[in-house]
């Protein structure tokens, strides 16, 4: 994803016809926000006018008190572990809710992947309404070209070349279309109905909501969560510098490595920033920094821009604002965008190692909006200082790539958790009424790396260490319980408190390569194919796997090189379901609990990109890493030897989430899709026809 900046001429004096050429970093959200601000101004004017239409008046009375509803989302909190810990008395706050009939397992989405699950929560209905079926979708017009399902960057059209620069001019007669990032989640989010009714709602770190969705009436604010990018336009790219690093900067999934060469204990390095997108051939903006190390005291001094920091081995710096200069043709002054990062000194000698967090969007001066309204992030930052703004804050890639050791990852994740607890306290301090939603990722991204609830060998670490780190997960649950206890203590009497997770967790011991299986069973040709992206003969292939749970038919009229006739579709799907559910591991274990046909699972107006089958793995199994992007391995099964040793992308019935409430839950088998209609009913709002969920309390009951 690239951010586009462009020139704009604005009429600054309409009487003298004076024009000003200015740079803009505007996008759709920016435009919307100016509308929003205008609306607020109008609201202020409206307050002084007695004859306001009833509907407008209803929308313009934020002072009216509404019931308080607080929803805390712990991503991936698992009911099996939570119940076990509650039974052992280790989660007193959550257990107190359970004892008051305020606990149920919460049915998750199908498939149980976070973007799908949270979109279910947001729409109060299944994927057929929001159009998100997996982390990864494919474009059938380009056969199987993959893209991220929740947001899409649409390249701009048109430009104006000037010397070495390429400018987009969004005014007549050029009317160039800027590059935009669009939220692909379809349907109406439930807060829209609250917004419309003049009920305030605040969402912190809400997943599947980047770019932040607009507020039509000014009663909704949110900070984007999972899906929000870093300043490089990725989901988080750390930078690692070491004496034994590669001479030429080397990219790896989620990061890049460079070598540091010390001369007189001083070294020079460059921090890679966003692309200088005004250039004809964009190149990354580099910011030089110097490192001076003192081997004796095991410290290093880092000088970057106007910052000087000193770190001891094992210490983290505070957030540092970094200025990145975008060059423009003279005489137009260069533009600047702000990023923030933290340095972590891992080792001084014998092998100097320095980690730099992904360059986050500066919340005090965001290069692109990460909140709705745009000023919301500045407001938070003015009170709390700088904080992580990328969607994935725990740097699991650094652990997977062995940049971090286990303990270092745990320490970094703790920084994230501490930061988020401060943010939660801020949100509670500024909460008056309406809906407050707060999301914690710690229970998910740490579980992925440290969960191991088994006596079997862990894929990547010795048994005792696996046990130790599973204890760490239990500690996180205890901290989560502490957070819930604090919220109940301060707001339990005045607010309805819901604690929920989008799915549970399970070990990820064995990998199943769906594409290899399809190849070995003659659905993908030729028999020596290695990837659906490169060497598959589509004229002979009938099905392929993409994403974590998706299986697609190579359907004629839909896929670019489709081969399966629509009339053959049903029989082929039935055949695949039968064969897949019969798959056994080498030790005879069942691998796939259920392969579901999407035409029997998804209902709604946005099913066009749905896979044809959703593969629901049993606990302990998951799609192989390689198959997610279409690659095939030599064998169908393999051990998962990644640090990412636990997952939830199996069958939806295998990994339900949790739901706690400080009010008895009436519905026996609540699901994620029930929460939105429940919240609406608490505000006496009717359930929209698009929602399929039901009130988990009692629809007749009033708050």
């Amino acid at each position, binding site marked *: 994803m690239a951010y586009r900046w462009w020139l704009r001429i604005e009429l600054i004096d309409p009487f003298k016809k004076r024009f000003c050429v200015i740079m803009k970093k505007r996008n759709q959200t920016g435009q919307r926000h100016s509308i929003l601000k205008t609306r607020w101004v109008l609201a202020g004017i409206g307050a002084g006018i007695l004859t306001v239409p009833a509907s407008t008046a209803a929308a313009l009375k934020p002072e009216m008190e509404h019931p308080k509803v607080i929803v805390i989302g712990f991503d991936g909190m698992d009911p099996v572990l939570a119940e076990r810990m509650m039974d052992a008395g280790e989660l007193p706050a959550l257990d107190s809710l359970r004892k008051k009939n305020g606990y149920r397992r919460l049915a998750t989405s199908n498939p149980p992947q976070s973007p799908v699950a949270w979109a279910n929560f947001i729409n109060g209905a299944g994927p057929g309404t929001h159009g998100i079926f997996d982390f990864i979708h494919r474009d059938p017009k380009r056969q199987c070209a993959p893209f991220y399902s929740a947001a899409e960057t649409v390249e701009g059209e048109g430009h104006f070349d000037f010397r070495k620069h390429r400018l987009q001019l969004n005014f007549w007669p050029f009317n160039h279309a800027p590059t935009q990032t669009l939220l692909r989640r379809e349907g109406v989010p439930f807060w829209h109905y609250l917004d419309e009714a003049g009920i305030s709602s605040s969402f912190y770190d809400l997943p599947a909501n980047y770019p932040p969705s607009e507020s039509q009436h000014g009663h909704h604010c949110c900070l984007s969560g999972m899906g929000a990018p870093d300043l490089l336009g990725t989901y988080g790219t750390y930078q690692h510098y070491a004496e034994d690093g590669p001479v030429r900067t080397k990219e790896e999934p989620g990061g890049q490595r460079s070598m540091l060469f010390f001369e007189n*204990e001083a070294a020079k390095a460059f921090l890679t920033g966003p692309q200088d997108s005004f250039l004809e051939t964009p190149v990354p903006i580099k910011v030089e920094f110097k490192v*001076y190390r*003192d081997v004796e*005291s095991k*410290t290093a*001094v880092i000088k970057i821009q106007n910052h*000087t920091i000193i*770190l*001891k081995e094992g*210490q983290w710096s505070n957030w540092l604002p970094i200025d990145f200069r975008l060059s423009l043709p003279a005489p137009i002054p260069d533009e600047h965008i702000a990023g923030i990062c933290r340095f972590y000194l891992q080792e001084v000698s014998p092998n100097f190692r320095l980690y730099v967090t992904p360059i986050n969007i500066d919340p005090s001066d965001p290069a692109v909006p990460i909140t709705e309204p745009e000023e919301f992030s500045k407001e938070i930052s003015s009170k709390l200082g700088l904080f992580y703004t990328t969607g994935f804050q725990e740097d699991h890639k650094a652990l997977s790539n062995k940049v971090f050791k286990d303990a270092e990852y745990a320490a970094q994740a703790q920084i994230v958790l501490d930061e988020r607890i401060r943010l939660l306290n801020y949100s509670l301090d500024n909460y008056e009424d309406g809906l407050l939603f707060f999301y914690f990722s710690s229970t998910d991204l740490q579980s992925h790396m440290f969960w191991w609830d088994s006596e079997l060998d862990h894929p990547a670490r010795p048994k005792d260490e696996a046990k130790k780190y599973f204890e760490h997960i239990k500690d996180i649950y205890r901290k989560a319980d502490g957070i819930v206890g604090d919220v109940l203590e301060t707001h339990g009497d005045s607010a309805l408190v819901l604690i929920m997770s989008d799915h549970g967790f399970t070990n990820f011991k064995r990998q199943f390569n769906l594409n290899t299986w399809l190849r070995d069973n003659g659905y993908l040709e030729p028999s020596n194919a290695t990837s659906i992206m490169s060497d598959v003969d589509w004229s002979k292939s009938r099905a392929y796997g993409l994403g974590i749970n998706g299986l697609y038919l190579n359907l004629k009229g839909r896929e670019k090189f489709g081969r399966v006739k629509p009339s053959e579709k049903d029989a082929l799907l039935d055949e695949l379901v039968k064969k897949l559910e019969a798959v056994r591991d080498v030790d005879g274990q069942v691998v796939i609990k259920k392969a579901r046909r999407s035409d029997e699972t998804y209902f709604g107006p946005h099913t066009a990109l749905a896979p044809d089958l959703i593969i629901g793995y049993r606990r302990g199994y998951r799609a192989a890493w390689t198959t997610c992007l279409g690659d095939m391995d030599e064998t169908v099964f393999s051990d998962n030897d990644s640090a990412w040793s636990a997952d939830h992308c199996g069958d939806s019935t295998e990994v339900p989430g949790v739901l706690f409430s400080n009010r008895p839950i009436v519905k026996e088998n609540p699901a994620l899709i029930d929460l939105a209609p429940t919240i609406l009913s608490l505000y006496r709002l009717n359930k929209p026809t698009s929602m399929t969920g039901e009130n988990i309390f009692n629809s007749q009951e009033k708050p």
Partner: protein
Amino acid sequence: MIAHLISWLNTGMNTLFGLLRGPMAAVPAWLSLTVVSSVLGVVLLVLFKYTSNQAAIGRVRDRIKARLLGMKLFKDNIPVVLKSQVQVFGSAAMLLVHSVPPILVMALPFCLVLGQLGVWYQAKPLETGEQALITMQLFSPENASLPSVSLMPTEAVKIIAGPSRVPSRQQVYWKVRAIEPGIHQLQFQVGDLQVQKEFSVGSGFMPVSIKRPSLNIGDLILYPAEKPFDKASPVQSIEIGYPDRTEPITGSGNWVITLFIISMLGAFAVKPFLNVKI
């Protein structure tokens, strides 16, 4: 020579401003800045009156008025207007020339006062628990290794990291956390030498000496609160990275600009009563 003179003057100014320390600390920062700026404006106006040639300035101003009147009366006569304009510019330049002696006289005391005010309004003390960077600039002959340096243990601070030596820049760094509120003296051992640096901790309004400087004219004016290091001293300066203080009246911008604006307003307000021609 000049550096020694400024250092000596700073000693006097420190004594003078030391007397104001109590009243300044007792009132809010915005109030003290307003009062100090206003008084400064009046004092500078009086100084201007007695160090400038008021009679000559009066004559030049009359001349400007006459030329402006000429331009108004003969606005259709282009040669007269152009000539008058040139004469107005010339007179304005003369006004500047007449301002030079008072500016020269006032420059040094004004800078010294500005330095003293900077001790109050430039930075804020560290809050308890807050961290700061300490930078010690050393001076040692080329190729000589840095002397052993340490920050002596004190209840005022906790060392988080350091000393971190950077021989190529002849610098030593520490990161410290403020522990005990008050104005402390940090003790540093540099080889056989012991040196001190003032260290302010607290949440109230108190003077903050950012840097103990060397005998450098610029630094002496900017950082007057502490005795400078000798030129031959192995330590050339010790600086503490205090956070900037928010401008106390408007909440944004630089306090020096506020001081200029308020002192000008103060001066203009009393100008008619003191009969000063500017």
